[in-house]
């Protein structure tokens, strides 16, 4: 695929994800005001926190009468996965100084997935920035409209938007399942998440599943062990092949 084609594909996908998450934000805005936050507080959450799961957790806990500190702690814990995304993204983005401060705010599920899912470095950078900005603008617009319009809006569930998110994650994961280890990691992570849903607060299952990758990554791969036995010293070759 040449660059013009890839750029068009990246921008189209970014806009699509932006529109889908913007529609979701309508429900967040409505939920926020229903939970007792003012329109300003609800919008400030989207502008400043800008990470969906944490925001839903915060207003969910406040709305259910939980303490503001418990709400904040849960939201931050949920945001921990963004630090993990950042680990991966810093290699791809290569941002320094002020740009890193800007990029940090745009680190989230969607922008990370769109960046690490791209084959070319240029496509990955464009995927991150385009998706991050599209989602940021439309997420905040959706939040404002949802907070103002509250009750008058259609239920996003009636539009099937709650199935759109997992389908998007699946579509982003599928091309990465190239071989036995990725399949094993994906299966184990899915099982860990499923098993832990009833046991831990919402959002934590995803964090627990991340441990699967940590455990799998800590032990040397079969290819590396084979190379070691052969005494071949080709550091970096395996990483090249992975890309």
């Amino acid at each position, binding site marked *: 695929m040449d660059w013009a084609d890839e750029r068009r594909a990246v921008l*189209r996908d970014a806009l699509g994800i932006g529109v889908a998450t913007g529609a979701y934000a309508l429900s967040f805005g409505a939920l926020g005001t229903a939970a007792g936050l003012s329109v300003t507080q609800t919008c400030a959450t989207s502008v400043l926190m800008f990470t969906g799961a944490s925001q839903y957790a915060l207003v969910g806990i406040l709305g259910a009468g939980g303490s503001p500190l418990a709400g904040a702690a849960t939201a931050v814990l949920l945001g921990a996965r*963004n630090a993990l995304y950042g680990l991966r993204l810093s290699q791809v983005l290569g941002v320094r100084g002020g740009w890193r401060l800007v990029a940090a705010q745009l680190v989230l599920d969607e922008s990370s997935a769109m960046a690490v899912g791209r084959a070319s470095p240029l496509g990955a950078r464009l995927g991150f920035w385009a998706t991050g900005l599209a989602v940021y603008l439309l997420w905040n617009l959706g939040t404002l409209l949802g907070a103002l319009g509250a009750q008058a809006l259609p239920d996003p569930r009636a539009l099937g938007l709650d199935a759109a*998110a*997992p389908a998007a994650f699946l579509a982003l994961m*599928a091309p990465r399942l190239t071989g036995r280890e990725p399949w094993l*990691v994906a299966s184990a992570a*899915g099982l860990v*998440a499923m098993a832990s849903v009833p046991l831990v607060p919402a959002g934590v299952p995803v964090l627990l599943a991340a441990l699967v990758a940590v455990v*799998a990554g800590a032990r040397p791969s079969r290819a590396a062990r084979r190379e070691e036995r052969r005494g071949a010293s080709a550091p970096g070759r395996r990483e090249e092949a992975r890309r």
Partner: protein
Amino acid sequence: MIWTAVLLASAGCYLLKLAGLSVPQRVLDHPGVRRTAALLPIALLAALVVVQTFAQGQRVVVDARVAGLAAGVVALLLRAPFLVVIAVAAGVAALVRALG
């Protein structure tokens, strides 16, 4: 108190995002870290698929989302483009919900 919660949580979430981007390159050059970083999106995406399909708060439920995801899998197997996969999943979930 709501402002306290919003501002504290926002600051915490931002610092976590920044921390991830700020880990020094030499840490990333460690083979274990590189492998973990490569496997991480797979584990997180798999978990997000499962959680967003089956979880409702802390309960595991089977609802229209499962039908939507199944339709998305079929679309993926037919090599449909990204947005078509999402649209098919949303459309089928909405249809199942409208009929149910």
